[in-house]
């Protein structure tokens, strides 16, 4: 279990994380979504005890991370896949951590197999690794201590599509066995397919959180009409203005039935009327995380 309670972090005059609260339950995958610079990494570093919050508390498995006697055996952490000693061989990077946390060296080879780093890759120095290989090494490192919790910052970054599918399956299995997963991304589609819960952060604040279904329900209705201007005017008159989406439709914060009625009253023929679904979630994510500009 992971819990952030009112986390606030300032660097000088800038407040990078403000009053961030959320919970990740065992058996679930939580997607931590936000544009670059929104405060995801800072929040995760606070969760792992690497950064001190100016206010609030962070707990992992019921207490502060730093109170875990042998943290690597409880929590798997991947904060920056590119941060590994460039002059160390891939296998050695895992082996030295395994020795530290008291894990048998045999598990190192097993994990290298599982993440798809073969013997020749394992013998190479990390400086020769692509970002995708570093992610795989980082995921193996996070799994090394057989943890109950995974905290992964942008783990899909640099993975090719098969690699992303593999990682999704892995995290799904991990959660299905009762594990808790928090993974961050700045791309909605990376977490949309795997996360049970979403926490969306923009400019250091949580702007939305809940299950995918809950967020989708609030994402509104997608409506299209051959005469878009007339539709927009009709919605405007009904007091439910729409926002243009990328494909010529309008996304309206209202139920499909109400939107249909407004169109009827305006005498506009519709070509599409449905809950907005993923398109709406995309729009919501975009609106929520850039809305502060206005």
């Amino acid at each position, binding site marked *: 279990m992971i819990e952030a309670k009112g986390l606030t972090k300032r660097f000088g005059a800038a407040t990078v994380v403000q009053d961030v609260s959320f919970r990740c339950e065992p058996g679930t995958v939580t997607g931590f979504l936000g544009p670059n610079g929104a405060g995801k990494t800072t929040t995760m570093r606070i969760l792992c005890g690497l950064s001190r919050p100016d206010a609030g508390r962070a707990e992992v498995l019921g207490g502060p991370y730093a109170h*875990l006697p042998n943290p690597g055996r409880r929590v798997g952490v991947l904060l920056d896949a590119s941060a590994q*000693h460039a002059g160390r061989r891939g296998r050695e990077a895992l082996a030295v951590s395994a020795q530290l946390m008291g894990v048998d060296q045999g598990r190192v080879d097993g994990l290298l197999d599982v993440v798809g780093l073969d013997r020749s890759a394992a013998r190479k120095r990390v400086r020769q690794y692509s970002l995708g290989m570093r992610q795989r090494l980082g995921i193996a490192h996070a799994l090394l201590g057989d943890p109950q919790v995974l905290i992964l910052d942008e783990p899909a970054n640099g993975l090719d599509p098969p690699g992303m599918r593999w990682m999704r399956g892995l995290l799904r299995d991990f959660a299905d066995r009762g594990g808790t997963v928090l993974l961050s991304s700045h791309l909605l589609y990376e977490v949309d397919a795997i996360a049970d819960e979403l926490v969306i952060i923009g400019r250091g604040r949580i702007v939305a959180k809940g299950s995918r279904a809950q967020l989708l329900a609030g994402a509104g209705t997608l409506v299209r009409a051959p005469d878009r201007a007339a539709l927009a005017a009709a919605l405007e008159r009904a007091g439910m203005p729409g926002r243009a989406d990328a494909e010529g439709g309008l996304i309206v914060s209202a139920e499909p039935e109400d939107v249909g009625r407004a169109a009827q009253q305006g005498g506009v023929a519709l070509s599409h009327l449905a809950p907005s679904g993923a398109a709406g979630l995309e729009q919501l994510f975009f609106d929520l995380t850039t809305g502060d500009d206005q």
Partner: protein
Amino acid sequence: MSANAAALELPVAARDAGRRPSMVRLTTVELRKMVDTRAGFWLQLTVVALTFIVVGATVIWGKPEDQTLAKMIGTALAPASILLPVVGILLVSSEWSQRTAPITFALVPQRLRVIAAKVAASVVLSLVAFALCLALAVAGTAIASPGIDGTWSLSAGLLGQDVFSLTTGVVTGVAFGAAFLSSAPAIVLSFVLPLGWAAIGSIHALEPAARWLDGTRSLAPLTEHLLSGTEWARAATTLALWMLLPLAIGTWRILRDEVA
């Protein structure tokens, strides 16, 4: 799916899962980190090779008075005393330069224990290096057999001072690495600062202070003769400035650092 399941079903021994890694283990891990990177490996190998070369050269070309055991030990220790402090520097600074500090501190949140393990590891390294140098010096003297009086005479006190000198040198490296948290400046300044300091100390008016604070004066006698009480006081003062102060600054920085 089966491959994923395999990852999660890999066996792992339950031992140690709920126990803090011991200081012995942390120290062993730090010793491993000294040699498991490319830079660390070549640096150590260079020290060993240079020690063989200087001892070998003294055996072949040295004058008999340079081939006594006491002189041979001094010669054998030279490469280690110059290069091992760099190993000490890198042991700390590379965690920042190579950005492994978050990994290290996520596994061991008690940062003071990590610093202590690094200092302990550098002491162990010094002792191992000293043993190797001593063995090579004995072998060198035996082969050269200069046949002059006192060839094998050795003072235990002086040997102890040799160990002390090498060890404090490597720990000073750790201290510099910690104070700068960056490899290049720490290495450059650990060589340049003492030299610049010595140059300043050669100014006549500053000479009294230099006797207490300039390592080229106060620490050099450690490997030459048994120190008097005053000389020990001078050496200790110098070490407080060059070893303990940077170590204190470095510890303070590491404990408060927002590890990125």
